[in-house]
């Protein structure tokens, strides 16, 4: 039974799904391309959420392993929006700042992306990649990571795939910032 302030209500509202619909059949995990790498694969995540362990589930690393491929939601025999629950837990994790250090890089990437959209209205890939790299570099020095993305950027630029200037700029950039502010996006 849900008590007032039950954290499950927030997840259900964000994901627009009913947690108790899940009957733990395991089909979502069976089809998940990242299931094998997850500390809390989709079926177990659903169970934790059903039990009201929202805080614990939002700290799981697996919500940031998820590729948002929607296989789980598409296959669930009970039409549970499993990937929507992953998104809800991610939003809660970001809001409460309860992100595992292992996943900081992935969240750093998503935030760099949104900062970029907020500023430009559209994504500017070079600006975004460098914003992401600089912040991540200072947060946790990781030689392999810097080498890897450092190699990727020039490779893309060489093929004319990354552009220093954005194609055609958005005219009403102030409006985009207002949309972000009205949605209360914290970056």
């Amino acid at each position, binding site marked *: 039974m849900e008590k007032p302030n039950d954290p499950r209500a927030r997840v259900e509202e964000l994901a627009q799904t009913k947690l108790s619909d899940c009957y733990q059949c395991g089909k979502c995990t069976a089809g998940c391309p990242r299931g094998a790498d997850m500390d809390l694969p989709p079926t177990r995540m659903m169970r934790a959420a059903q039990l009201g362990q929202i805080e614990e589930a939002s700290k799981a690393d697996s919500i940031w392993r998820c590729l948002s491929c929607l*296989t789980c939601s598409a296959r669930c025999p009970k039409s549970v929006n499993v990937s929507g629950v992953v998104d809800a837990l991610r939003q809660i994790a970001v809001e409460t700042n309860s992100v595992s250090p292992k996943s900081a890089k992935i969240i750093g*990437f998503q935030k760099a992306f949104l900062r970029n959209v907020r500023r430009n209205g559209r994504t500017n890939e070079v600006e975004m990649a460098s914003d992401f790299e600089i912040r991540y570099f200072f947060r946790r020095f990781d030689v392999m990571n810097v080498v890897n993305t450092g190699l990727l950027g020039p490779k893309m630029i060489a*093929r004319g795939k990354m552009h220093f200037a954005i194609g055609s700029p958005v005219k009403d950039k102030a409006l985009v910032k207002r949309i972000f502010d009205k949605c209360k996006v914290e970056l």
Partner: protein
Amino acid sequence: MNIGYYPGCALHGSSIDYETSVRACMKALDVQLDELDDWICCGATAAHCINHKLSVALPARNLGIAEKMKMDKLFAPCPMCSMELKKASDELKANPELRKEMAEIVETPVDGTVDVVNLIQVFQTVGFDAIAEKAKEKLWRFKPACYYGCLLTRPPKTLQFDDPEDPTSMEELLKKLGAEPVDWNSKTVCCGAGLTLADEPAVAEQVRKILQDALDNGANCVVVACPMCQVNLDMRQADAKKLGLTQDVPIFFLSDLVALAVGLEGKDLDFAKRYVAIPNEMKKTDPKPEDPKPAKPVAAKKEGAAQ
């Protein structure tokens, strides 16, 4: 035919070759693209994993502009964009309160009435048979593995245009153009492109598995309808090879193959920007050698006459 057009960030950035291919292909099919005024980013994965409201608002702004421009269809070649736009339009249509809230947030009325379509759906609108009639030569050299990835058909409730587990619309179109699509298992397995910069080892292994499955089933190329799939499967092949991928696999956009069939060539389609080189014989269509051309029977008759 005119159609509203939402290019999306990828097509104006790292996948500019997709934009070239789509535009060239649509022109050849007499489809006029009317670009959405001052469109903004759809928010992609980042918006829906950080702020649900934003993930509706960004698409809603674009839908509002499309409604103002009186478009009835809005074509988004990137399946991530088309899925986000379509999902938002479904939510808006179903929920009057959300329409009110969003109109305030995005500063324009929005009802979600514009029909959002992806590349395959545009070809369906033109008609597979009508496209086949325009074909100059058959795509006889192509044995594509048609790769739908995750978002072209999902969520199935939102994108009801093909079977989410075993979609076949690309195969159907390409067969009509003379290609021989192979039967394979990985057509809807996610390629992991969403994490290209953020979690690289996982992505390389995902790419290896998908491409090896295509090769093992006799494919000589992979065809996609997604800019992220294309970049990921193309650029990551070097890493996938280190993990055991046995050979190079050229990665085409569906619009490339349709364009080749109706007579365009690699240079019209920006093939130079692909990481894995497109073999010369796949840069344009040519007559199949054993196919007797109309000229030959005439020659044979002459011989007969000489005898």
